[in-house]
């Protein structure tokens, strides 16, 4: 009986190992550091080599469309970052002034962040109003 059980253990271990390997390679390929703009600056030279996802608010009036690309500036706690979006995916509906954006890509020595992907969240009307003391609840979205 023991040897019969053993082959199931070995078989399962083999499957798990193979999948772990696949998972690990997928992880290395797709991992990125998630930082805010000041955190990225604080990481110093490490910022240049890494795949990054940087979060900041879109500064009003900085969005400029250049053909398929979009240039804009995001900021967080008084530090700002110039971003050039070169991705193929359409720009999200929620991307506009004041939106909270997450850009994914690499930071160049020229001080411009080249983003291949972008996410944006906006609950800003509610947040603005909350800040003004008009309502008590925030939009939860779905």
């Amino acid at each position, binding site marked *: 009986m023991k040897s019969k059980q053993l082959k199931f253990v070995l078989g399962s271990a083999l499957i798990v190992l193979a999948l772990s390997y696949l998972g690990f390679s*997928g992880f290395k390929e797709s991992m990125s550091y998630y930082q805010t703009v000041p955190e990225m600056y604080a990481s110093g030279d490490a910022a240049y080599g890494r795949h990054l996802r940087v979060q900041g608010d879109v500064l009003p009036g900085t969005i400029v469309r250049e053909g398929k690309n979009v240039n804009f500036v995001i900021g967080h706690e008084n530090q700002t970052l110039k971003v050039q979006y070169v991705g193929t995916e359409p720009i999200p509906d929620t991307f506009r002034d004041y939106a909270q954006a997450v850009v994914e890509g690499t930071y160049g020595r020229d001080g411009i962040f080249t983003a291949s992907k972008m996410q944006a969240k906006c609950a800003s009307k509610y947040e603005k109003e909350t800040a003004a003391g008009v309502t008590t609840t925030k939009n939860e979205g779905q």
Partner: protein
Amino acid sequence: MAQLGQFALALAFIITIYSIIASLVGIRFRNDKLIASGRNAAVGTFGAITVSIASLAYLFLHDDFSVAYVASHSNRDLLRYFKVSSIWGGMEGSLLLWGWLLTVYAALVVIQNRKKHTSMMPYVTAVLMCTSLFFTAMNLFVVNPFKLSAVAFPNGVVNLFTPRDGQGLNPLLQDYWMAIHPPNIYLGFVGFTVPFAFAMAALFTKQLGDTWIRTVRRWTMVAWGFLGIGIIMGGNWAYHELGWGGFWAWDPVENASLMPWLIGTAYLHSVMVQEKKGMLKVWNIVLVVGAFVMSVYGTFLTRSGIVNSVHAFAQSNIGGYFLAFITLVLSVAGYLLYDRWSYLKADNQMESFVSRESSFLFNNLILHVACFAVFSGTMFPVLSEWVTNEKITVGATFFNNVNVPIAIFLMFLTGVGPLLAWRKASTNSLKRNFLIPAGIALSCGVIMFFAGIRHFYAWMALVMSIFVAMTIVREFYKGARARATGTGENFAQAVVNLTLRNTRRYGGYIVHFAFVLLFVGWSGQAFTTDTQQEVGIGDTFNLRGYTMRVESLSSADTPNYSAQRATVSLYDKGVHVANMFPERRFYKNVEQPTTEVAIYSTLKEDLYLVFGGASTDGSKAVLQLFYNPLTMWVWIGAWVLGIGTLIALLPNKKSPPSRRATAKARVGESKDAGKEIEHASS
């Protein structure tokens, strides 16, 4: 009305506590009257929460913006239909819906079993009501949907204040599918409470035989079915509403709904091993507890904003309560399992790789690897921040790398598992059952390879799909042919009657077939292409044999939104097939733009056209066109999945009375037939 809702909620809270106490005290003193009273109280909870959620609906329908939740999720111009669905547009209402659905399930369960399982049922009632208590308490004390609108002045004074209009529902949620997708997901999430309650009751009473397993089989399938359909509905919503061209992005909230589903799927299979062979008893309890905990955790993930997601907009304070509740559940279940271990000994052991139970074992193993991968990928930012102080996120590549091979392996098991014998399948039976399907699938594989399908995983998925489809067709054909010869029915009648007489087995095959269709749809994802063009009126552009011609660019203005829109004619190899109207709207009330995608769907492929934006003078527009092969099969698969699940839920049709005598006379004969079925049935 707000007071009524609030009062009903408070009443529900008290009745729930009473129900728990009455059930537990009733058990302790063997007092049937108290137990019955606890049971009635459980039904009463359903009544109270129904009144509460109905008041919330009333408040939405009557634009009562004095209630903060209504003011922030609705407005006067919102369609009545969406006013109702606004109930679950935010956290407060979603949790109320969760709690209400739970009391619906609870009421049905206690009424269905009022005369059965007398020693187990009071525990079932108590566990259901404890869960209900948690959600009612959350709604009453933490996220109350009946809180009144108020203004806080800088000097600290808070005044009640009724806004003249509400802030409106997020336009992305003003969508038919979005109205029905969350209730479906919740019916799935909440439904797993029922098997959980029975598993706990079985542990408490030490009645760990087959009773609880048989009682919860249908309930688990109901939950599993709703969850599966709900997940696909969510995908459908994302596909036509979000405008990025796909339907699944491994977003944390999508993952949250997938995890309990994976565990539920594992349970539906491993439970058969316990029924037939008396093995995996501990495992099945672990799965039931796991599915329930994952459902609660999924609700938590969706609503707490602990991980960034397109769904979770706001951070909230509910996280701690959920974690405490989950910890409590795991501790109690863990302790009981430990204490009752000796009652859960397996009656048999695994013998051969090539057996039904072994196929279930591997099915469970890889479903769990899938669930674990999804879990760790979703939680990695949180975990890595704890450990290294840096948030590290993982992308779709990680999820796909693990889950695509798992899915293909699962498909393989779907094909072979149902036809393998228990204990050990003979080489002969393998040849008999698999030679033809495997032959056909491989021949098709060769053809597909030369037809240009070179993507390895997509090719594998399609070959597996054909293989599984062949085994299923063969099963129906074999069974129906035998039945047609035996009864004189024609073939079509035989197929129907065959299915209705063993709904679990043949419904299961139909569900498996649904996954074949879903696989075909998913493998199309390997061949998507897209193009982005800046175009003016009269310009044309091509993609995969299709030509798009921009006929006009216009703008519109309605009270609700302003819009820019393009009219595009679509030509398939020169023949005009459709006019498409991709649009970009700006909803004024919520100051939010949305994309209205234009989709031209055929069984072969979808053309998916997005209006990206217009140049300042309006003479040019950026259009993005996606070519998505086979996407329609995902939605067709979802329908088949629903139908298959429904069939599997039907009770088996009995022989008509006139034939009963003959059936009795053939008992000996049917016993052999029964063996044949046992050999192959689920």
